[in-house]
């Protein structure tokens, strides 16, 4: 049997029952880590759409954390508590921003694309830190979205399952997309843009559509992140977070459907593992685990392009 299916199936099963497990072992802390892993996976899946399938290095994806989050936060601060209103508005805002950024930045190539996506993300970052009415630099405490009668987001297990359902839907959508005609055009343009253009495909429009969808899904992760901590702040879209998202995607395996899930798990687990390991070598070293993690990224960039996904055997398609 294909090891990829076994490993992925086990992981998904584990994640599906995580609240029961953490309750059984009496570690509610693990559930909040798990919630964050799931939310970051959604963001990384959305980045993977543009970075993996599209081959476009977008370095401003954390902006969608912020746009999704702030849309919820600002509406909540203005007295609109209903999630039925907040969430669609946040998704639309993310998609609209992505469409605008994409329309401008997809005209550029290579490193200019990387820089202009980064610049637009910084723009949103500084705009949010200038919003004195909504907390400015300090951020904004919000009350969680209300879906009265349906689900209470303050219930940690219920919120986790909601995030997990969102992740499952995102993965399902992404797998359908990747193997559709649309996804094939996108991947074709990654290999050879000129050839796709010559075949008559409007590559720019396909990429813009992908960028917009990717932004909307990124916004979804922002909505969830805001509800997880009941808090939004400019820090959630600092450019280092965009870097973290790229790390997760590459770590898991670029362009692999479940890559972001493996990447996010390892990214969050590595801290928990490296710390005690280093402390074992010398008491107190664990605090400085990033001294090891940083060079590890260098090694991965140099020698392990396929990421974790490539450890699970060859991928077809």
């Amino acid at each position: 049997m294909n090891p990829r299916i076994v490993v992925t199936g086990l992981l998904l099963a584990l994640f599906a029952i995580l609240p029961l497990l953490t309750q059984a072992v009496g570690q509610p802390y693990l559930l909040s880590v798990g919630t964050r892993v799931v939310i970051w996976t959604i963001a990384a899946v959305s980045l993977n759409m543009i970075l993996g399938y599209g081959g476009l290095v977008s370095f401003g994806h954390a902006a969608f954390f912020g746009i999704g989050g702030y849309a919820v936060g600002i509406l909540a601060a203005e007295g609109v508590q209903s999630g039925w209103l907040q969430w669609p508005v946040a998704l639309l805002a993310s998609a609209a921003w992505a469409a605008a950024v994409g329309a401008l930045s997809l005209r550029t190539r290579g490193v200019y694309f990387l820089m202009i996506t980064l610049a637009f993300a910084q723009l949103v970052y500084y705009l949010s830190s200038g919003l004195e009415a909504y907390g400015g630099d300090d951020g904004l405490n919000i009350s969680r979205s209300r879906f009265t009668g349906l689900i209470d987001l303050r219930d940690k297990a219920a919120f986790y399952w909601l995030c997990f359902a969102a992740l499952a839907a995102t993965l399902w959508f992404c797998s359908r997309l990747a193997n559709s005609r649309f996804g094939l055009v996108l991947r074709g343009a990654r290999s050879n843009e000129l050839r796709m253009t010559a075949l008559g495909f409007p590559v720019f429009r396909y990429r813009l559509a992908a960028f917009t969808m990717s932004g909307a899904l990124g916004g979804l992760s922002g909505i969830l992140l805001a509800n997880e901590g009941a808090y939004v702040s400019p820090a959630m879209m600092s450019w280092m977070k965009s870097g973290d998202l790229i790390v997760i995607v590459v770590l898991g395996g670029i362009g692999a459907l479940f890559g972001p899930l493996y990447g996010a798990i390892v990214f969050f687990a590595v801290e928990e593992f490296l710390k005690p390991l280093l402390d074992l070598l010398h008491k107190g070293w664990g605090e400085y685990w990033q001294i090891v993690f940083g060079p590890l990224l260098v090694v991965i960039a140099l020698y392990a392009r396929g990421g974790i996904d490539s450890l699970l055997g060859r991928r077809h398609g």
Partner: protein
Amino acid sequence: MEYLLVQVLNGVQLGLLLFLLAAGLTLTFGIMDLVNLAHGSLYMMGAYFAWTFITWTDSFLLGALLALPAAFVLGVVVERVVARRLYARDHLDQVLATFGLILFFNELVRAVWGPEGRSIAVPKFLAGTVEILPGVPYPAYRFALIVVGIAVAVLLAWLVARTRLGMLIRAGASNRRMIAALGVNIELLFSLVFGLGAVFAGLAGLMAAPLSSVKIGMGDDILIVAFVIIVIGGIGSIKGAFVAAMLVGQIDIGGRAFLPDLLKAFLSPAAASGAAPAISQVLVYVLMAGVLVWRPTGLFGQRS
């Protein structure tokens, strides 16, 4: 009027500081085709080296003079150990690897120098003010920064335009495989350029230190501004980096100085003074987006 003059000078001073950082970045970018996110770490290390040497020698000048060769050595080591393996790789690998370097350096500083920030005092002989015009005082340290900045810019222009090393740098920027084929020791050239960039970054870091503080991650945000500058100016162009740095310096300082009064017409005073720095930052990115839409390879970039 005097206020305006002082603010313009502040903008020039910030612009020159940014130019120092952007110059090294645009050289490594233009010649080696390397997206070096860790350039901000070299800026931070320059400041920490300076703090150590200044504390050790008890002299600002001596400490600064010792910090520069240290930054050079660090730059060469980073080039030999990591950067040179990345030149032929795609930008994604470069981003990932140099992002890893940032994490490494930030954590290294925390382990060696501790988590709390350090401060470098303005040297005594530059503690006062100078009269730039009769009756218009200006802080002597900032004035010295402008002088040093201009001197370095002139030195760099001379180096690139008039020396043999500069000739090789320009040749490398237009076609590095060709000059390698012509028998130039390109590995040595790359190490030198990287080390030079590290010296400029370190110089910027140590000169900025007395105006703010020496702290972990101090290079992370200013690095992005330096990237914006080289994209506006055109990748690989020193002249472009200078013009763009001056523009960005004026926008940033001008925005902070004059926007609050302008915004008070629409907003409460507190909101206006809070929003002004953010808006002046936003203006910098709007400038970049505008330039890229108008000229996709920057003001002085080569058309491909």
